[in-house]
């Protein structure tokens, strides 16, 4: 069997901060195959963006410590030199960022910014590259693409800008697309369009996608597999069905409980996970979620390993039978009840 497109094993990334070393990513492993969409889910600060940026060498700042393995096919991403990474970025691994307005340079025309990426990787002239940019803009569903290519970023709507950055990401036919919260800054209707576009690209071009998000609604829409991250670690991973219908980790229950659903009776407030994510300079010594977990019990003082206890891996000491009972709150999966009137 050929190696998976992307393989990340025991990735650890830490930075220097005034308060000590911050272990932003602490032993993350996953694989992504061609044509697959992996969703990495978690709160802000859970390490999901750092994981993604590390893959393309954008976390190589002074004082950073990066350990583990990350390979694209046979290529070692963590050991690659900067000039090798420049060849990979944009061509083999393309990135789409959260806020397209700030991800585009305000002083250049959208088409020229796409053309710049094409010309960085292919030996084509300016006008050819511009023509390709117009074509790409049309392909991601931007009407009057020729005109829009000449627009500056602030002259386009939010949805159109995000389409433009996706067009840019596609320009060199990458094998892997890293989408870091690509829909967070958008309206719900536009979100659905952008997600539809990502799924389409996967189906048509066979592009693999690492979709980083905090929104399980987005995950349910397009992902094949899900990895839930908490405090720099993956706490649960599995197929979309496994994670949504048989969630094993209380943190996942909490995330699922936060989705408001129209097919269930309304609670007065949306249930929220109590407390805040732990400090990554001095994380809890046992289970990192225990301080916020209403189900914590003595074994949680030792860190639970990521192990398969019920079909797919998770990091929780509770027995699967116990979990099945505890994860149902008010007739649905959740961690805590919504406040009642």
């Amino acid at each position, binding site marked *: 069997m050929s190696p998976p497109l992307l393989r990340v094993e025991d990735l650890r990334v830490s930075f220097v901060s005034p308060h000590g070393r911050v272990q932003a990513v602490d032993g993350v492993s996953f694989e992504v195959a061609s044509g697959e969409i992996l969703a990495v889910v978690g709160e802000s600060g859970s390490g999901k963006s750092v994981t993604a*940026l590390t893959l*393309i060498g*954008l976390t190589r700042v002074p004082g950073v410590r990066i350990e583990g393995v990350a390979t694209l096919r046979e290529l070692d991403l963590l050991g690659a030199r*900067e*000039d090798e990474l*420049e*060849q*990979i*970025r*944009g*061509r083999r691994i*393309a*990135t789409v*960022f959260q*806020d397209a307005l*700030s*991800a*585009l*340079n*305000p*002083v250049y025309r959208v088409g020229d910014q796409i053309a*710049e*990426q094409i010309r*960085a*990787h292919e030996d084509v002239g300016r006008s050819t590259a511009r023509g390709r940019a117009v074509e790409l803009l049309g392909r991601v569903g931007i009407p009057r693409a020729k005109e829009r290519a000449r627009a*500056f970023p*602030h*002259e386009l709507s939010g949805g159109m800008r995000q389409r433009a*950055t996706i067009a*840019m990401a596609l320009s*060199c036919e990458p094998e892997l697309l890293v989408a870091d919260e690509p829909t967070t800054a958008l309206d719900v209707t536009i979100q659905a369009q952008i997600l539809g576009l990502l799924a389409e690209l996967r189906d048509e071009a066979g592009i693999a996608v690492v979709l980083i998000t905090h929104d399980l609604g987005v995950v349910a829409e397009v992902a094949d597999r899900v990895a839930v991250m908490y405090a720099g670690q993956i706490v649960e991973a599995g197929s979309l069905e496994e994670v949504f219908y048989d969630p094993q980790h209380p943190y996942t229950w909490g995330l699922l409980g936060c989705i408001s659903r129209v097919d269930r009776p309304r609670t007065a407030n949306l249930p929220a996970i109590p407390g805040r994510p732990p400090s990554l300079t001095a994380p809890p010594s046992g289970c990192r979620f225990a301080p916020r977990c209403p189900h914590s019990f003595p074994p949680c003082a030792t860190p639970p390993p990521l192990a398969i206890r019920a079909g797919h891996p998770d990091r929780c000491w509770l027995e699967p039978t116990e979990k099945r009972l505890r994860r149902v709150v008010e007739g649905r999966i959740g961690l805590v009840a919504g406040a009642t009137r």
Partner: protein
Amino acid sequence: MAAFVVRRLSSMALVLFTVSVLVFAVFNVIPNGDPAVRMAGQAPSDFEIQAIRQEWGFDEPVWVQYATMMRKLATGDVVSYFTQANVVDEIVRGAPHTFSLAIGAALIWFAVGVVLGLVSAVRAGRASDRLITVLAVIGVSVPGFWVGALANHYLGFRLGIFPNGGYVPLTENPLRWAYHLVLPWLTLALLLTGVYARVLRTHLLDTLSASHVQAARAKGITGRQVLLRHVLRNSLIPVVTLWGLDFGVVVGGGAILIEAVFDLEGVGQYAAQAIGDLDVPPVLAVTLFGAFFIVVVNALVDIAYAWLDPRVRPR
């Protein structure tokens, strides 16, 4: 665009009017400012003074004098009280000297400032950054006329490497023109080079942490291209604006001391002499020339800003 021009022209008229009234008023209330007494020479009789007053119209009400002065300025007939030389002719004669000084110095402080700013931002916190900071502070703190006087004395007078002041027109001999201007250029640029390096450094560091720069790196363009096209290009916008304004200030009288130190016989030196003599017509004319130029440069800066930053362009 038409509205922009109208707005600019009316604000220019207001600025010029205010400046002229202020200058005129100041010279009317200044002690020993009576031009008739000063023009009459040593130990004049009252009769002589009275005659001068009548001849020059100094016995008229102040606003009439002001109106006459402005009319003469507009027609170009205004003459100095003391040398009787036509003021507009003098300004036209001195303007190339002043512009030669200002343009050369402005190019130097901009170019050197950008290079130093770029180096100190890329090497932020390291030795070269600190060295540039120290040099910038020294450059800003040391008075230009003092440095100019020292340079003129040692490099010009003592060692004879450079000419000891003076000006050669560009049209006459470009090489000698530049040769005479090297020291004045460097002296004038010294003050602002450090300022520009520091201002650019701040903007560069801001831009370096912008998301679009990270996105540009994610595109796979080289680090050098990211730095020049995405970081420097965006950071230059405010610096270019500042440059236009500073250039206006230097031409509009900011280089008087440097002109005097190097005996460049520019508009500034002319004005300085006129102020010493309390000679109102040249002072007024030069002030208005400076104010006019600054207003024009301001308008150009606004246009340049819109050209550099598409976000502020009118749709």
